[in-house]
């Protein structure tokens, strides 16, 4: 049985149409769903009970299962919320030792990928629907001498299945690649430590972090884990020395750079030399006697920044960490050198147990292309990933896919690679399949299906073992392998179930290798030829924290979530420094052409503060041609059918083969879809700074814990006696020091609360619907601050007074309630909200995609057009926690209620609780001298408090 709340209008007529077409169109998947425990409600108010209720399942009850997030190779632990047989939300699994309860925006949104109606619903042969039998027959004849091409396989069980498959077919081999490649780091370690592996980073131990273009809080390797590590060290209220120092040298302004204490814009070509200078300075400080690297291209370096950084590093030897995102192995060798000099290996980064998130090799990929050229490899099995799109040499691969004896994709979506393959054997969505993951050696997490497969898809493990002639189910393969290698010994069943419940198992790494740095390689380093061509710009292609490499490009929630830095949604853009923009004579929104070699793309320009000069940067993951209708565009009234108007952005991957590009202006304009159009903390006329974000330096903070609070205007006495809140009084505290701007909360909130997605055209009109938004400001020094902004649940809420029909009121627990069904839509409340957090339903927003609607939260009304909506402090969670507590005859405990934003935050920046309970975490936060309320001078009495941002710097 399914309980579901829909449209507050609930117009029978529309329901009829909707349900009617739904029943027709979705009969197949529906049967699958009802098998999972659903009763459906046909039109005319019929109620059809199940034949038999599965054990332990109660209609309308929420169940949580531990699983692993499948959105990227970081493989964070996740809990999936299942309601009446439907997974409707993913949240971080607090028991997972790496992600520790955090989950990024992409992970949060991946539940929507499950219900993507653009997924493959059956196998394809030559582009046509085929039976599994026909497909298996076709594939089995052609398996000799093939290469299995895959992005890094993090599942040991799948890797085992691949190995068995390869053994069966001589001449076949596995090629791994990564769309967001870390190949250079692996290659560098192969040269300096003799083992081609990715280290496991322990940022939590690092007191000093120096990062070169490694966006570790945004999209680099395992951002959730790194944020969890990084954020506790950013709390100044601990002892004197515990706030870490973080320097970022980068070509563009990244989320990580925005949170750094020292940020230096740096062209990619300058990275080698800068690292060498820092290395030399460190070498002299730590008396390094070994070989030294040769000089690179001379560059104009910020000498103060170099010596400052080197000094900080040397002071924190063994407790520091240098990171680089450079694709150049020589540069990465310098990073290893500095880390080795500082004795960081074994402390803040470890090679054994190693990081297993990235194992791809660019060399191997090139060798595969060569072999295909020569005919040495006869066919390609694309196990996972979408190399035609997300590899710079995808176009070359595509040529071979067209002509190879066997080109087979196991993609669950008709993506760029799958459409070039002769056969497609669609894999399940991770939420439908049994699997496991080992992101760091020894940390094994399980994936379990939360729903029966919606379509006629088959697990990759099953396909591979079938073709290898040893058919077995994915569950059997998984259990078999776990029984043998993960949980050997007695009592397997109990431990298996325990592992399933927890979702993760830690196994010891046997005999860790003690790898030593070999400095001899330094002398042989050849600095890379990254120098920009004459008149050209260096290219910095990056993955944004919200869309990553673009595999989820058809996910409306990710498309609508703005980039944390540029605040632009629905598409990428080419960022320039203001100086370069002036030189080129371009303004924001001017379409520019970036070209190099044969590749050329057009993007609107974006002028970015803090961007390195001579560099153009743009996000990967956009401009997909075969991702689906959402990636193409998104009309406001309907999700389907969609007229293709324009691509949301352009594909940058082909350009990443080049380090520099030519930039020309086309003369056309294309307005970016921005959710925030004014960027500064100070106003443009008087230049006076507004005090919504209050910030200070660590030095000042220790002198005066309330420093940086600014001078708030005095609030006069109230005319009215305050209302008292005899029960709980809910409140929230947000720590600006650790909010990285990653936008995980934005997505979590949207999914929890059925917030509509409105599309590019509407976002352009400033009509984004986010209840929780992250404001990004630049201060007078050009530094960045993020400020999550949501309904402040003011005690003296200005919005409440003005509503003529009592559609917004104050609850007895201090929450500002919005009653959608009472709202007539005067928008007066939104006008009178000083924080502008209220959102109006300008249209009936798209709920036409019936599959997608399965992800709606049944505890929340779907709002119709013409009503106001806003953050409710996740009142449904408060309600259910209270009901649970009452059923168990106890009070609600502190921390039991966590709104979706607080739950999802990888930095634990958001604390929620009862202000009337002096022992609650939020009450303690309020007592902190750093706490302040935004616009408190208005006397509105917000229930949301912020903690002053403290920067670890001297001035």
């Amino acid at each position, binding site marked *: 049985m399914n309980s579901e709340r829909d449209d507050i209008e609930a117009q029978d007529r529309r329901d009829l149409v909707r349900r009617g077409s739904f029943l027709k169109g979705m009969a197949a998947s529906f049967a699958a769903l009802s098998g999972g425990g659903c009763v459906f409600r046909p039109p005319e108010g019929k109620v059809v009970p199940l034949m038999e209720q599965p054990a332990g399942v109660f209609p309308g009850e929420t169940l949580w299962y531990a699983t692993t997030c499948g959105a990227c190779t970081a493989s964070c632990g996740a809990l999936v919320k299942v309601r009446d047989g439907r997974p409707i939300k993913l949240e971080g699994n607090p028991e997972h030792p790496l992600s520790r309860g955090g989950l990024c925006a992409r992970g949060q949104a991946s539940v929507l990928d499950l219900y993507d109606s653009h997924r493959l619903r059956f196998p394809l042969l030559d582009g046509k629907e085929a039976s599994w039998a026909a497909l298996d027959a076709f594939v089995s004849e052609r398996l000799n001498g093939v290469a299995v091409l895959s992005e890094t396989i993090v599942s040991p069980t799948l890797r085992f299945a691949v190995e068995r498959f390869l053994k069966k077919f001589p001449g076949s081999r596995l090629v791994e690649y990564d769309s967001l490649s870390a190949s250079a780091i692996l290659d560098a370690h192969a040269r300096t430590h003799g083992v081609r592996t990715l280290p496991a980073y322990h940022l939590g131990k690092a007191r000093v972090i120096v990062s070169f273009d490694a966006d570790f809080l945004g999209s680099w390797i395992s951002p959730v884990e790194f944020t969890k590590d990084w954020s506790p060290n950013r709390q100044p209220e601990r002892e004197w020395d515990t706030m870490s120092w973080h320097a970022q040298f980068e070509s563009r302004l990244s989320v990580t750079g925005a949170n750094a204490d020292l940020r230096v814009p740096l062209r990619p070509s300058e990275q080698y030399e800068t690292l060498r200078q820092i290395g030399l300075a460190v070498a002299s400080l730590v008396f390094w006697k070994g070989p030294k690297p040769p000089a690179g291209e001379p560059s104009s370096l910020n000498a103060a920044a170099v010596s400052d950084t080197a000094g900080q590093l040397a002071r924190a030897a063994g407790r520091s960490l240098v990171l680089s995102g450079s694709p150049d192995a020589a540069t990465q060798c310098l990073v290893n050198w500095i880390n080795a000099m500082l004795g960081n290996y074994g402390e803040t980064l470890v090679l054994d147990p190693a990081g297993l998130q990235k194992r791809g090799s660019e060399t191997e990929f090139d060798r595969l292309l060569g072999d295909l050229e020569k005919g040495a490899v006869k066919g390609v099995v694309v196990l996972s990933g979408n190399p035609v799109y997300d590899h710079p040499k995808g176009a070359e691969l595509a040529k071979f896919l067209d002509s190879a004896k066997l080109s087979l994709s196991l993609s669950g979506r008709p993506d760029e690679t799958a459409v070039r393959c002769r056969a497609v054997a669609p894999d399940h969505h991770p939420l439908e399949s049994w699997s496991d993951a080992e992101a760091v050696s020894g940390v094994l997490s399980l994936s379990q299906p939360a729903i029966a497969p919606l379509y006629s898809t088959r697990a990759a493990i099953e396909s591979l073992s079938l073709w290898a002639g040893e058919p077995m189910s994915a569950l059997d393969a998984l259990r078999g392998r776990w029984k043998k290698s993960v949980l050997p010994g007695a009592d397997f069943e109990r431990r298996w179930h325990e592992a399933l419940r927890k979702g993760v198992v830690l196994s010891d790494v046997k005999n860790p290798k003690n790898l030593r740095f070999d400095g001899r390689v330094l002398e042989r380093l050849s600095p890379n030829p990254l120098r920009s061509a004459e008149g050209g710009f260096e290219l910095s292609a990056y993955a944004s924290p919200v869309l990553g490499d673009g595999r989820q490009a058809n996910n409306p929630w990710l498309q609508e979530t703005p980039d944390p830095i540029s605040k632009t949604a629905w598409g990428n853009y080419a960022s320039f420094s203001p100086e370069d923009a002036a030189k080129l004579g371009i303004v924001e929104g001017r379409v520019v052409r970036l070209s190099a070699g044969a590749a050329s793309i057009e993007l609107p320009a974006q002028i970015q503060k803090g961007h390195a000069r001579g560099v153009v940067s743009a996000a990967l993951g956009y401009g997909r041609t075969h991702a689906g209708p959402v990636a193409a565009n998104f009309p406001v009234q309907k999700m389907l059918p969609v007229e293709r108007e324009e691509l949301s952005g352009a594909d940058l991957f082909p350009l990443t083969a080049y380090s520099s590009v030519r930039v020309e202006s086309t003369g056309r304009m294309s307005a970016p879809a921005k959710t925030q159009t004014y960027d500064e903390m100070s106003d443009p006329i008087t230049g006076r700074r507004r005090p919504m974000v209050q910030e200070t330096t660590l030095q000042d903070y220790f002198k005066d814990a309330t420093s940086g609070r600014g001078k708030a205007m005095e609030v006069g006495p109230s005319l*009215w006696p305050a*209302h008292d809140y005899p029960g709980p009084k809910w409140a929230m505290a947000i720590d600006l020091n650790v909010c990285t701007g990653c936008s995980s909360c934005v997505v979590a909130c949207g999914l929890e609360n059925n917030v509509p997605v409105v599309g590019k055209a509407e976002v352009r009109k400033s009509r984004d619907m986010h209840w929780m938004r992250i404001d990004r400001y630049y201060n007078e020094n050009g530094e960045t601050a993020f400020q999550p902004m949501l309904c402040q649940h003011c005690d003296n809420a*200005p919005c409440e007074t003005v509503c003529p029909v009592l559609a917004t009121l104050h*609850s*007895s627990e201090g929450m500002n309630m919005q009653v959608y069904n009472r709202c007539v839509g005067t928008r007066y409340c939104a006008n009178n909200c000083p924080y502008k957090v209220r959102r109006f339903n300008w249209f009936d927003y798209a709920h036409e995609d019936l599959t997608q609607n399965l992800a709606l939260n049944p505890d929340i009304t779907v709002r119709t057009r013409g009503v106001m909506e806003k953050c409710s402090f996740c009142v449904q969670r408060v309600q259910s926690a209270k009901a649970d507590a009452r059923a168990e005859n106890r009070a609600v405990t502190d921390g039991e209620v966590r709104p979706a934003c607080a739950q999802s935050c990888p930095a634990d920046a958001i604390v929620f609780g009862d202000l009337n309970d002096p022992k609650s975490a939020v009450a303690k936060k309020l007592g902190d001298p750093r706490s302040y309320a935004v616009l408190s001078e208005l006397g509105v009495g917000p229930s949301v408090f912020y903690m002053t941002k403290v920067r670890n710097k001297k001035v």
Partner: protein
Amino acid sequence: MADRDFLVGVFVCEQDLLAATHAAREAGFKIHDAYTPYPVHGMDEAMALPKTLLPRLCFLFGAAGLLLAVLFQCWVGLIDWPMNIGGKSFGARPALIPIAFELTVLFAGLGTVISFLVLRRLFPGREPECAGLGASDASFVLAFATPETEQLRGTLNRLLLERGAKSVREASSR
């Protein structure tokens, strides 16, 4: 009104009308009414009309509106369903004023007009009295209940003609 016969004098200006009215009343004729294109000042005294009730009624209606508005708002806010709206007190007094004022005016205004209609028995479909004599155009008409005797009729006729009546004739209320 019942079908009644009148003796009417038609005048061309208010001066003559007033004079005739005074004279007729002094002569002891009972004036039924005067019909004029605009209100003629001095006619009240000439016809010895009593003071009207309307101002007092207007006040009463206004007071009723005020009371209703204040009591209803207080009852809703304090007794029927107190709600915390923007942190203000349940019975925040200044907020009562605008609506209390508006309802006072509304009740007083409508009450006065309705009272007037009732007092004068005006309603849609009412037949005007003494129509057709041009009282809505340019004539000033003085109407008497037709005297009982021929003699009195003659006296009145003469009196009116002497005071400048353009004509004197019989008319009916229908």
